């Protein structure tokens, strides 16, 4: 009797584990992607879309898996690299590519005017790239909400004008919920296949 009961309980426990496993927590992120579920606030900002000149907010990106990156166009290495890797990923995503948006937020709005940023992003040749520019308050609010650091030290000599910024890519689901951070896109050996797999999973299922 007791034995049977234990068995039954065991069976129940087993099947609920199986249920859990079948739901979204079973997904294992790529080693270069770090889950931030529940640790980061939802996507929230107000900025100007440099291609259209229109004010946009998180509401404009509902329904898209939305990636956020803070950078600047006079960036000698990590920003163009990240953009180029991102465009590769969008290509690999195939028909899922257009379901994603990559928001490139300039941390150097002083030099990155709307036309300059729009032209720069256009070079990379993917319509999924969106350039965002805001005033100091809009930028700092957005960056702070994601714990993204940046600093601009202007100088008359362009070679001495320095800009620092965090290089992470923040990934939000179709409802603006923070899902994970891609830390590897500007790394020496970005795991393009692995990051693509995570993004495709998110696009297909709406959660990681």
């Amino acid at each position, binding site marked *: 009797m007791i034995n049977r009961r234990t068995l039954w309980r065991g069976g129940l426990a087993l099947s609920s584990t199986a249920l859990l496993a079948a739901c979204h927590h079973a997904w294992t992120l790529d080693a270069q992607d770090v889950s931030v579920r529940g640790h980061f606030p939802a996507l929230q900002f107000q900025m100007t879309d440099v291609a259209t000149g229109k004010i946009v907010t998180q509401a404009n990106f509902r329904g898209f898996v939305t990636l956020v990156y803070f950078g600047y166009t*006079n960036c000698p290495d990590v920003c163009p690299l990240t953009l180029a890797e991102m465009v590769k990923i969008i290509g690999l995503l195939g028909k899922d590519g257009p379901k994603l948006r990559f928001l490139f937020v300039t941390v150097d709005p002083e030099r990155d005017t709307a036309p300059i940023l729009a032209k720069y992003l256009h070079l990379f040749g993917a319509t999924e790239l969106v350039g965002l520019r805001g005033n100091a308050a809009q930028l700092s609010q957005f960056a702070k909400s994601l714990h993204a650091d940046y600093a601009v030290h202007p100088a008359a000599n362009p070679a001495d004008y320095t800009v620092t910024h965090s290089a992470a890519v923040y990934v939000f689901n179709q409802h603006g919920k923070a899902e994970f951070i891609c830390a590897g896109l500007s790394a020496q050996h970005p795991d393009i296949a692995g990051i693509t797999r995570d993004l495709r999973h998110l696009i297909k299922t709406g959660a990681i």
Partner: protein
Amino acid sequence: MRSHLALIALALSLMAAAPASQIQLGATIMAHGTASGALPCMACHGGHLQGNPAIGAPRLAGLDPAVTLAALKAIASGKMGKNYVMANIARDLSPTQRQAVAAYLASLKSRS
């Protein structure tokens, strides 16, 4: 002296003979990079390839083809430059792509 002049004439005629398709390929690489992963050159060298001192990327417009080819070779081998992204790009470009880039840059008028 004479053979020198002949060589120069030959070089000039070769330059003038850069086929339009080659120049077109060079222009595409400049604006959009290559499928194998070279970044759009204009991202660092400027929309008019006028150079960008903020990045330390020199002016490319109007470069003599020999200079372009020699620079790419030196950068690829690590003998010149300090930007690792540029070094990777130089290594990534095939001989055909280098020729195309050189032909295109030469076709742009140098600012006097």
